[in-house]
């Protein structure tokens, strides 16, 4: 091997970690910069992916990451730890990052239905709301710890997921989507008209999470500089996000994930392969809803105030866009999609009333250029038998 080759080989080994660093740098620029820098990053990312796919580089990148999983993960964790400092400790920028993490969790859960099973669920915001309201009620009305609220939110959303999933057993395609739109509307009306749930006024004064007797809502001091409390939530949210990405990836390569894909392709054929449709479908809704429930609980205890407008139909559409833009059935893609859209949504505030218009235009352009989403689904790998 010539010296030059050894050198390229070494660089190749470093590429996954370098990729993570570049992604976080881009994220920091997107959050702190102007709308234009965010858009340039989105365009650059899309262009890079299209170019990479044409030259087979995307597949190679996946393989490289898998080869050097532990070092990539370490770099990723370091980047998350450093993220608040890169964002200059500005509480608004940190807030965007926290929201991006929370929305990414909802999108990951929604992906089990839309991405894996091809059932377009128009009620993810309702499920996000169920989690937030459960957690808020348990803490505000019953005075329990927010951690108990989080667990309660997970349990309630798991059950509600099964309720929301029931129509999927009997209806398909458009009909199912219509039913979920109805469920979303019912949720909003139910909350607005129930005094006990705060009605149209929402629920104020939701306590924050606390760890080791320290409230996460307390700003701290580090080396003489004040650190906004949002930093604590970045760590909490991204830790959970990382965990849920790992769970999503595991589910994708498991039999369950494969069964979801089979149902998307053809339900009847799936049942002739021995798949229990009822169980597998309800599982998708239940697990997906637990994700939304976790995010809802985080949101409630982060903002300390929740109102019904945080969980309306528009929010549901945005969650669906995150899955579509990021790439169906690819947890990493969905996470990137969710983060990008959250940041863009914030940056578009300069357009005031025209914000949704601009948002839609960006979405249309990206999806026309790259209809399969930023990072589409990947082939599964199976262990090889012994060659004979």
């Amino acid at each position: 091997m010539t010296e030059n080759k050894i050198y390229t080989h070494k660089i190749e080994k470093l590429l996954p970690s370098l990729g993570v660093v570049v992604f976080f740098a881009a994220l920091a620029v997107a959050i702190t910069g102007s709308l234009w820098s965010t858009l340039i990053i989105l365009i650059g990312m899309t262009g890079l992916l299209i170019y990479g796919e044409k030259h087979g580089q995307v597949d190679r990148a996946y393989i490289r990451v898998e080869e050097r999983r532990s070092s990539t993960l370490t770099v990723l964790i370091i980047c998350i730890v450093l993220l608040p400092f890169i964002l200059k400790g500005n509480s608004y920028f940190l807030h965007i990052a926290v929201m991006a993490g929370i929305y990414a969790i909802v999108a990951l859960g929604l992906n089990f239905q839309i991405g894996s099973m091809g059932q377009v669920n128009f009620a993810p915001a309702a499920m996000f709301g169920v989690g937030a309201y459960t957690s808020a009620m348990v803490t505000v009305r019953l005075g329990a710890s927010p951690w108990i609220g989080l667990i309660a939110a997970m349990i309630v959303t798991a059950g509600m997921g099964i309720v929301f999933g029931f129509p999927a057993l009997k209806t398909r395609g458009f009909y199912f989507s219509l039913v979920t739109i109805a469920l979303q509307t019912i949720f909003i009306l139910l909350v607005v008209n129930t005094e006990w749930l705060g009605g149209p006024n929402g629920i104020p004064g939701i306590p924050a999470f606390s760890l080791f007797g320290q409230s996460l809502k307390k700003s701290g001091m580090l080396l003489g500089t004040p650190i906004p409390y949002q930093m604590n939530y970045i760590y909490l949210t991204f830790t959970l996000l990382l965990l849920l990405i790992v769970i999503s990836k595991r589910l994708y390569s498991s039999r369950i994930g494969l069964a979801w894909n089979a149902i998307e392709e053809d339900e009847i054929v799936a049942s002739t392969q021995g798949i229990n449709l009822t169980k597998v479908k309800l599982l998708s809704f239940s697990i997906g809803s637990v994700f939304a429930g976790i995010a809802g609980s985080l949101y409630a205890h982060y903002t300390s105030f929740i109102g019904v407008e945080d969980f309306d139909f528009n929010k549901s559409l945005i969650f669906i866009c995150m899955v579509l833009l990021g790439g169906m059935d690819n947890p990493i893609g969905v996470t990137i999609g969710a983060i990008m859209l959250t940041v863009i949504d914030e940056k578009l505030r300069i357009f005031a009333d025209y914000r949704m218009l601009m948002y839609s235009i960006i979405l249309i352009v990206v999806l026309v250029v790259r209809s399969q989403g930023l990072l589409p689904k990947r082939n599964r790998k199976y262990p090889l038998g012994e060659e004979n």
Partner: protein
Amino acid sequence: MLLELSDVYTKYGQIPMLQGVSMTIDAGDAACVLGSNGAGKTTLLKTIIGIVKPFQGSLSYRGENITPLPSHKIIQRGIAIVPEREGLFPGLSVDDNLRLGAYYEKDKYALAQRKEEVLAIFPRLRERISQQAGTLSGGERKMLGIARAILANPQLILMDEPSLGLAPALVNEVYGVIKKIKEEKKIALLIIEQNAQKALDVVDRGYIMQKGSIIGSGSRDELSENEIVKSSYLVS
């Protein structure tokens, strides 16, 4: 006795389909059902695997009454199906399709071993293992359907018109494989066919179906001499 249908009646909405079908298949046995379009052959298969439920009569598999069971439970008992056409998952890779054939196998390594054996019979599928099933040619799809069924390790494979839509050379290839399964793997077969010539080459006995009823049955030689079979299905 592996599979037994006794006096099965089914209907689609108000339209009667099967009208009192009775048949038996023994372990390691190979039988065919000959019949023209609309005779109810495919309905028969759907009834066996529980997609269509009979309103009268019963089915039993290895002595167990499987009439009320949902499809996935019947499949789990050891029946696999090679569907006529749209039976694959075209958007998934060949590998995924094979994995789904043995959905109930939890041991990844035992499965990999079995897959190796199956791919030895179908070398073409090995070349296409990471391709989407929808990109395969008609013959390759049929092979994938059969490979997937074998991978499930069943005692009985139901085949819906394995020769349909294939060039004569491919028909021979497919039937060559079917013969191999029967002889080497000792799996019982129930083949639904219109191509009586090919089917009768492989099976031990058969049934003739018309308008939802069995109108005749017999051993391979008896069927080859049967007047109905000769006039309707053995036009050469």
